[in-house]
C-alpha cells in the first residue's frame, strides 16, 4: 500500500489508511474538531492522490476498525459477496470512480458491483468525486422498496409528512398532517418525532395516525420515531406500527451511546415482521447523519464521511423501506456552513444509494449554523436531480418541535412540478381520488387542510 506522494513540490508521507481517508475529505469542521483533517488544500489533494491509487483490496485488507473489535465492521464484512469482490479487488479507487460514471454502466451494473463493495470502499470513492459526480452517479441507481406501497421508481419524488408538535398534542399533530396531505405529501411515511418517550405517547400517536389513514384510506405507512425499545413496547401492546425506526451510528460504541446493538435491532426486526401492520417486506426506517460518532466520542479517529458510510452498511442488513441522513441537524462543529452541508448531503445520498439503500435526505439546518433557507432550496434541487427517494415535509420548513428548519410541503410540491417528478404511484392515485391532484399537478383545493375534517 503506497502512502507517499508529491504535490506542488512537497512530499507527503501518510501514516496509514485512516489518515489518508480523513485527509482526502472535503473540508468539514467535524474532521477539524477531531483533529484529523488536512491542514490545507495541498495536503487534501495529496491525500486524494494517494487514495486514488489504492486498490479496493488495500482498503479491505487494512480495516480502519477491525471486525474482531466492532460489530458494525462484522456486519459490513459479512455483507460482501466474495465472487464479485474478487473480480474488482484490484481496481484502484480511481478506476472504481470511472467505472461508476461510465455511460454504459447503469442501475443493474451498479447494483451488481455494490455487492462486492465495503462501506469503506464506497466512502473512498465518494472522496474522489465532485458534487456533480455524486449527483450523476446517484441518479443512475435504482432502489425500489415496498412497505404498504412502493417507492423509489424513476421519476418519483416522495415526501415524508413530519407533523411534529412541541407537546405531542394529538390534535396538533393531526392538524399538521392534514396540511401535509392537502399538499400531496405523506407518501414516504407519516412519521412523527415524539417529545415524550413513553409507551403511551408512542401508542397514541401510532393509533391517531393510523386512524387518519384508515378513515381516508390513504395508501402510505406510519411510524413514530421514538427509541426502538419504546416502539417495541408499544407494538407489543398492540399499537399499529407499519414500520419501526432507529437512528444508527457507524461504530458499535456509537450505537451503544444510542442504546442499541445488532442484537437489539435483530430482535426489533423479528418483532416488526411478526407484529407490524404493514404488507412489507421492507419495514425499517433508519436515520443517520455525519458527526454523530464524534459527538459521542466513539469515532476511533475515523473521518465522518467513512463513519457515515458504515451506517449504511449496517442499515443494509435490515433491508429498510426508507433511510435518511439528517444532514444539517447536528451543528456547526461538524458541518460548519451551507457549503459543507450541501457537500455532505450529496455524499450521503450517493453512498447510501451505492449500497442499495432507498435514500432520502433531511435537507436541514439549525439556527447556529451558517446557512439559510436559500441554501436548502439549492440542496433540494440538487438532490431532486440526483433522484433522491424522498424529502422531509414540515409546515413552512419550520419544525416547531425539533427547532430546526427543513424542507416544506410547498418545497416538495414545487420540486415535483419543476422537475416533472410524481408522488408514489399508489399515493398519486389516491390524491386524484381526493381531487387534490390531476395529471401530476395540484388542483385548486390543494392546501386546504379542512377537507380532511
Amino acid at each position, binding site marked *: 500500500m503506497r502512502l507517499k506522494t508529491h504535490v506542488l513540490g512537497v512530499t507527503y508521507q501518510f501514516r496509514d489508511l485512516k489518515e489518508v481517508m480523513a485527509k482526502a475529505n472535503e473540508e468539514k469542521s467535524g474532521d477539524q474538531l477531531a483533529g484529523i483533517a488536512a491542514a490545507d488544500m495541498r495536503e487534501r489533494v495529496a491525500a486524494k492522490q494517494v487514495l486514488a491509487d489504492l486498490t479496493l483490496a488495500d482498503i479491505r485488507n487494512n480495516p480502519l476498525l477491525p471486525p474482531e473489535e466492532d460489530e458494525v465492521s462484522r456486519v459490513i464484512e459479512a455483507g460482501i459477496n466474495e465472487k464479485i469482490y474478487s473480480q474488482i479487488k484490484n481496481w484502484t479507487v480511481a478506476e472504481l470512480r470511472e467505472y461508476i460514471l461510465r455511460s454504459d454502466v447503469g442501475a443493474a451494473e451498479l447494483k451488481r458491483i455494490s455487492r462486492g463493495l465495503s462501506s469503506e470502499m464506497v466512502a473512498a470513492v465518494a472522496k474522489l468525486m465532485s458534487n456533480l459526480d455524486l449527483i450523476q452517479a446517484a441518479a443512475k441507481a435504482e432502489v425500489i422498496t415496498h412497505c404498504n406501497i412502493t417507492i423509489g421508481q424513476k421519476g418519483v419524488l416522495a415526501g415524508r409528512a413530519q407533523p411534529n408538535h412541541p407537546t405531542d*398534542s394529538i390534535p396538533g399533530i393531526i392538524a399538521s398532517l*392534514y*396540511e401535509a396531505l392537502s399538499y400531496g405529501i405523506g407518501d414516504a411515511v407519516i412519521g412523527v418525532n415524539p417529545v415524550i418517550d413513553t409507551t403511551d405517547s408512542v401508542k397514541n400517536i401510532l393509533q391517531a395516525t393510523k386512524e387518519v389513514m384508515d378513515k381516508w384510506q390513504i395508501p402510505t405507512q406510519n411510524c413514530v420515531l421514538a427509541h426502538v425499545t419504546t416502539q417495541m413496547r408499544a407494538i407489543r401492546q398492540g399499537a399499529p406500527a407499519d414500520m419501526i425506526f432507529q437512528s444508527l451510528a457507524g461504530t458499535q460504541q456509537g450505537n451503544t451511546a444510542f442504546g442499541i446493538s445488532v442484537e437489539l435491532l435483530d430482535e426489533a426486526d423479528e418483532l416488526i415482521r411478526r407484529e407490524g401492520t404493514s404488507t412489507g417486506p421492507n419495514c425499517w426506517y433508519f436515520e443517520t447523519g455525519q458527526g454523530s460518532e464524534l459527538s459521542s466520542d466513539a469515532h476511533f479517529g475515523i473521518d465522518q464521511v467513512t463513519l457515515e458510510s458504515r451506517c449504511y452498511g449496517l442499515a443494509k442488513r435490515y433491508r429498510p423501506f426508507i433511510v435518511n441522513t439528517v444532514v444539517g441537524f447536528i451543528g*456547526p*462543529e461538524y458541518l460548519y456552513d451551507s457549503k459543507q452541508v450541501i457537500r455532505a448531503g450529496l455524499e450521503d445520498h450517493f453512498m447510501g444509494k451505492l449500497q442499495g439503500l432507498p435514500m432520502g435526505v433531511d435537507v436541514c439546518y439549525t439556527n447556529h449554523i451558517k446557512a439559510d433557507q436559500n441554501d436548502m432550496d439549492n440542496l433540494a434541487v440538487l438532490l431532486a436531480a440526483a433522484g433522491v427517494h424522498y424529502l422531509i415535509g414540515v409546515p413552512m420548513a*419550520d419544525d*416547531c418541535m425539533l*427547532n430546526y428548519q427543513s424542507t416544506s410541503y410547498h418545497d416538495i410540491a414545487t420540486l415535483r412540478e419543476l422537475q416533472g417528478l410524481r408522488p408514489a404511484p399508489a399515493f398519486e392515485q389516491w390524491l386524484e381520488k381526493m381531487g387534490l391532484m390531476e395529471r401530476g399537478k395540484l388542483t385548486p383545493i390543494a392546501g386546504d*387542510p379542512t377537507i380532511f375534517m
Partner: protein
Amino acid sequence: MKEELVLDTLVDKVMAELERKLGREKTEDVAEGEDSEQEEERIAVPQPKWREGLRELLASTPARIGVWRAGTRPLTKEVLRFRRDHAAAVDAVYGEVSQSILDEFQLFAVETCFQNTENYLKRPDMGRIITDEGVSVIKQKCKQRPQVQIVVSDGLSANAIDANLRDVFPALLDSLRAYGLQWGTPFFVRGGRVACMDHIGEILQPDVFVLLIGERPGLVSAQSMSAYMCYRPRKGTVESQRTVISNIHKGGTPPIEAGAHIGTVLKKMLEQKASGVQLAI
C-alpha cells in the same frame, strides 16, 4: 348559606357572569370584526371547506399551517414572517446578555476559553473550560463548597437570559428558601457550554449545581432557556448524569413554574445523592 340576601348576591353574580359570557360572545364578534384584518390574515386559505374547522386546526399547533400558496410557493407575508423569525434566532446566537440584567441580580461575569462566537460554534470543547483569569475571580469571590451553586450562561441564546432571568431566577431562589436550601455565590459565564459546570464544580465543590443557559434558538422562540442540574458535577461527569428542564420561555415551560420546580429537583438530588438517569423523581 347564611342569609337570603347572600343567595341574591350569588344569583346576581352568576347572572352577571352569564351576561358577561353572552355579552362577551357578542363583543368577540365585534372584536373579530375590528381586527378582522388580522383574523382574516391568519386564515389565508381563500375558501376553506370548513372555516370554523380551520380555526380549530390553527389553534391546535404553533406549526405554520393553513398558510396557502401562490402556485406551489408560499405567500409573501408568510415567507417574510419566516425570515423575520429566522433573523431573531440568528441574532440570539450572536447577541450579548445585557449588563443591566447581570447588575440587577449582582452577577459578576467570567469567560470560558471560547474567544469569539465563531470559535464558540466550532469548538464546543473550549466553551467547557473557564479561563485562568476566570478561575481566580471565581476562587476569590465565591463561597466554597456551597450546598447549591447557581450559574447563568448565555450559551446559544443571550436573548433567552435577557427574556427569562427576571422570572426564573427569583422564583428559583424562592423555591430554595421554601426547601431551606443554602446557595453560594451566583455568577455569569460568557461563552459557556453545558459541561462548563464540571469545571466550575471542580473549583467550588458544590453538592448540587444548577446552570441556567440559553438554548439553541428555534423559529418558534429564540428565547428558550434550559436549566441543567447535576449532583456534584466534576471532571468526567457524563451527560446522562444531568437532569434538565428545557424549553423555558413565555410560550413554553412557564418560567416561574420552572424556577419553582428546580428547588424540588435539587432537594431530591441531595436526598438521593444522584442526578440524571439515576434520579427518581
